[in-house]
């Protein structure tokens, strides 16, 4: 009878006689690598050669039962395992189908779940009857587990999951108080662990995500006596499932949480918790390093902007995992994202040291980027950017364009603090050249177009600036507020005020109320520039109403943060109104506004300067001078005060002309496009009899007059 079963088992075994079939496990193991994939196992089992029909199973089974005094389930379990091991998944399945798990559990239950009265009474466990029934239980449970595996390989995930779940249910009903640590047969424990690990994956494959979620939690929260590696794998997969699964899940039940413990309230929190636990486990040496854990955590924490927390985890990673320059770069990204540019730059400097990775493109670009936001780091940024684009391997157009863009920005910044006119004009030319090259590589990058526009405008090439501003609005669909402002200011510089107003109005249409501040300010200044004082006052009033409403809505007065948030401060509004009234010689109104401004910000160069203007209007020269000097003592480089002092002194007779000249030259060093400074410098030259120089200055002033925007282009 048995011989029939064997020969039917396939030609691979061949006609080698009676023992052939059972000798084949060796062969089967040799074959195992090929048949690892479920698909190949399935095709193997579909072939007629490996077919086992029910008749044969029964024969084989009965012979086993007779010979080994096994019961029905055990015999089937053994046979099925053999088939599975050979890759005959379908055959295995047919064998396993006959096992009645419920009946088997009933039999195991009394002997195994009998709890010893005393915990010390462990000897009972080693009773032969007990270990015998454990062995039997182990066989049957393994069979069900293998059945689940077989079903999975045949693509029947739901049935597989149901089978796998029944293994766990059975184990839970046998061991009602969880699996004891040491008393379980190794094979049984292995089956339990494998099933615990398998179940959520099967539910996932079946698309039953709620069940998957529940079975992950069941795996991690019940006592299965899993080893560290197995538990780690489950935690890892669960965290991934929580992080990316897109399953709406209720958090783990409160019943299982103790007081004072951290209770995750959604998927993301639970995922982050698990990932942090995994890192700690690794840190404590309980599990091997898995790079994916850190990547998942990086993704999760970057999404919610917690890169400073992420930085701590990068710092905790033991040496030898990441090359140190890579770790420094990652840390620099974390700090930079957390607005700690100084820390980021320090790390990048370490990394870019000639003994480390001086040509690391990513580090160079990030360093250049950080430097581009600070005038005093501009020349350093230029170096980094030049090194980045100098790299021959950097043929990638994307990164090359990024490098050139950063180079241009840093050069433009450097030109602002250049010590000579000559150097300044060199840097400015170089800046535009770099930006232009970057643009030729990437014509659709709005940030690049914007920076080019600002640079052209600052160099008073308003025609080119206008083109860039329009192009920026085209590529962003008008969705970025600073683009509208640039366009409006460039038009104002061209003295196309009514067009500038149209742009401002269009921008207001596209902007929500809370963000209209800077646009309303431009509008007020445009009105003032067109000598429409009443409309300008009206515009300022609207701006004031907005600013005050914002203050009410957000509570506190946070001076200083407005600039960053692109909000207008109330101080600025009063100051602007004061300037407007002063220009109309409405001294009392101007003074009232100045008082309001002073109440908001006591020591402000702008306010002190405006006070000086008021005194000037009343021809109180000494008071005016004192106010301007006070302004300079609060802000050493306050250009308007320097210009005003120069202007005032130029009218005080020949004795004061050299001093006036020095103040005005100083102002022009800081702000070469200051029209008034050129004008008064011309006056000084004229009074001194240097007519040719005077003429040059007046010409410069008149040229600039035609290209002065109503407010500064930086910061936009």
């Amino acid at each position, binding site marked *: 009878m048995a011989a029939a079963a064997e020969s039917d088992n396939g030609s691979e075994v061949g006609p080698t006689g*009676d023992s052939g079939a*059972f000798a084949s496990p060796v062969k089967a193991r040799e074959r195992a690598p090929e048949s690892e994939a479920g698909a190949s196992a399935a095709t193997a089992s579909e072939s007629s050669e490996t077919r086992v029909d029910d008749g044969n199973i029964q024969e084989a089974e009965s012979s086993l039962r007779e010979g080994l005094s096994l019961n029905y389930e055990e015999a089937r379990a053994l046979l099925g395992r053999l088939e599975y091991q050979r890759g005959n998944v379908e055959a295995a399945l047919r064998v396993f189908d006959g096992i009645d798990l419920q009946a088997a559990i009933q039999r195991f239950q009394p002997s195994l779940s009998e709890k010893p009265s005393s915990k010390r009474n462990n000897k009972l466990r080693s009773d032969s009857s007990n270990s015998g029934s454990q062995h039997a239980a182990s066989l049957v449970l393994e069979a069900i587990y293998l059945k689940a595996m077989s079903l999975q390989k045949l693509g029947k995930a739901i049935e597989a999951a149901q089978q796998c779940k029944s293994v766990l249910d059975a184990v839970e009903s046998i061991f009602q108080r969880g699996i004891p640590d040491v008393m379980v047969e190794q094979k049984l424990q292995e089956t339990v662990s494998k099933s615990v690990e398998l179940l959520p994956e099967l539910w996932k494959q079946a698309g039953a995500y709620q069940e998957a979620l529940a079975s992950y939690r069941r795996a991690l929260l019940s006592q299965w006596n899993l080893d560290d590696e197995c538990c780690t794998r489950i935690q890892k997969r669960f965290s991934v499932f929580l992080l990316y699964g*897109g399953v709406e899940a209720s958090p783990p039940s409160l019943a299982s949480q*103790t007081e004072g413990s951290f209770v*995750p309230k959604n998927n*993301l929190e639970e995922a982050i918790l698990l990932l942090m636990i995994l890192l700690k486990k690794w840190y404590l040496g309980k599990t091997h390093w898995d790079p994916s854990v850190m990547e998942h955590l990086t993704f999760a924490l970057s999404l919610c902007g917690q890169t400073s927390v992420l930085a701590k985890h990068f710092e905790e990673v033991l040496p030898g995992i990441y090359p140190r320059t890579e770790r420094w770069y990652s840390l620099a990204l974390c700090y930079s994202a957390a607005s700690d540019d100084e820390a980021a730059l320090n790390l990048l400097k370490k990394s870019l040291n000639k003994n480390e990775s001086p040509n690391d493109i990513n580090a160079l670009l990030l360093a250049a980027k950080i430097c581009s936001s600070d005038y005093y780091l501009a020349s350093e940024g230029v170096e980094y950017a030049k090194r980045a684009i100098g790299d021959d391997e950097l043929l990638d157009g*994307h990164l090359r364009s990024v490098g050139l863009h950063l180079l241009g920005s840093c050069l433009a910044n450097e030109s602002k603090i250049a010590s000579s006119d000559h150097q300044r004009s060199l840097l400015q030319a170089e800046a535009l050249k770099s930006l232009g090259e970057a643009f030729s590589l990437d014509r659709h990058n709005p940030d690049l177009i914007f920076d080019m526009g600002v640079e052209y405008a600052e160099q008073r090439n308003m025609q080119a600036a206008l083109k860039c501003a329009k192009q920026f609005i085209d590529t962003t*669909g008008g969705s970025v507020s600073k683009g509208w402002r640039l366009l409006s200011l460039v038009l104002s510089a061209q003295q196309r005020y009514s067009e500038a107003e149209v742009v401002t109005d269009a921008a207001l249409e596209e902007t929500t109320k809370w963000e209209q501040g800077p646009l309303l300010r431009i509008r007020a200044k445009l009105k003032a520039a067109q000598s429409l004082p009443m409309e300008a006052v009206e515009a300022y009033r609207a701006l004031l109403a907005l600013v005050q409403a914002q203050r009410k809505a957000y509570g506190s007065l946070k001076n200083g943060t407005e600039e960053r948030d692109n909000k207008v401060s109330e101080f600025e509004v009063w100051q602007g109104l004061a300037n407007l009234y002063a220009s109309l010689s409405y001294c009392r109104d101007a003074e009232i506004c100045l008082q309001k401004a002073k109440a908001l910000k006591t020591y402000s160069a702008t306010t002190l300067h405006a006070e000086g203007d008021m005194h000037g209007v009343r021809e109180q020269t000494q008071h005016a001078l004192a106010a301007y000097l006070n302004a300079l003592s609060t802000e050493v480089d306050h250009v308007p005060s320097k210009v005003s002092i120069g202007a005032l002194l130029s009218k005080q007779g020949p004795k004061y002309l050299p001093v006036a000249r020095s103040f005005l030259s100083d102002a022009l060093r800081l702000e070469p496009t200051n029209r008034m400074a050129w004008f008064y410098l011309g006056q000084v030259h004229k009074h001194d009899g240097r007519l040719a120089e005077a003429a040059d200055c007046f010409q410069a002033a008149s040229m600039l007059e035609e290209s002065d925007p109503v407010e500064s282009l930086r910061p936009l």
Partner: protein
Amino acid sequence: TTMSSAAQAIQSPKAAVDSLAAILGRALPESLAAAGDPAAALLHDDGVARAVTGRLRGAGSGAGQDALCGWLYGTFQSGLPALQLAVLRFVPTLAGVYMSRAVSRKPLAGFEAVLLTLYAHAVAQRGSGEAETVTLPNMAKPSVYHEAIKPAAAAPAAKTGKADDPDVAELSPALEPHGSIRATRRGRIVGAVLELYHAKIGLMPLSSKMDFCEFCVAWTGKHRSDDKARIASAESGEEKWRRVPMPWELFQPALRIVGHCLLGPTNSDQLRTQAARASQCLYLRAMETMDARAVLACRSLVRLSQMVEEPIPEPSFAGVEANMAELETMRANILSGKK
């Protein structure tokens, strides 16, 4: 007013199907009319998806009088969760086409009406002024999954008083109500709609996610020329989807969706491939401005896309060998006994 009349008409899945049939006519598969569960068919039927997305992508779609937009609007307004899912299914195409065309400042009142109603739903769901936050775990406290881990010796001194303050991170800022789409709020509104989509993404069919990845690639403007050819040939309309501005409020939800497509449970290699491409493009886009936060998140996705998932352990037959030998002997005995 067109929109509200459509809203009144749709009160049941059957009505939604009838109304869609009136708009799309023969483009719809015939099976739809007879579907036992019309809402599920609207969500899952590939033929329906092709007909609707084809029309959404078509020239001139999304205008104020676009009947299909009216249908999406009305169907979502029905308030029936199953029908709302069927509308969300089209968010990738809706948002994709809308964002691309909005850059060109075309009138898209139809698309905007649908997006605004989805946005209003998100606002109502969240509560006005409520940000979506994440509380980071404090490892010094125990949780269901771990025992308290004592911080390193030096740490407590440095952080006295701060230890009990949990780190609360903002995942999504508060949503202000909007009655129209102003250009400067476009990214936020569409971003919030993508968040709404992401919240239901586990229920979305594969083709919907594929659509999103495709548009995401186009949005970044970072696909190479060979990709462009693919994208162009993939659609009959030949419309070139423009690069769009991607402020963080749009970039972040897009990244979360791509993360799901790449690493969420799926059996589709095609989706994973497409999502890997999208994350590569997002990475390049992030590098363009060197936005550190975006670079970190995208870099991780790209790296994860290149890692091989650990397979589920196979059953081990180690130790079985002994059993086998035993079994074999016994079996031999049986056989010899019989003979």
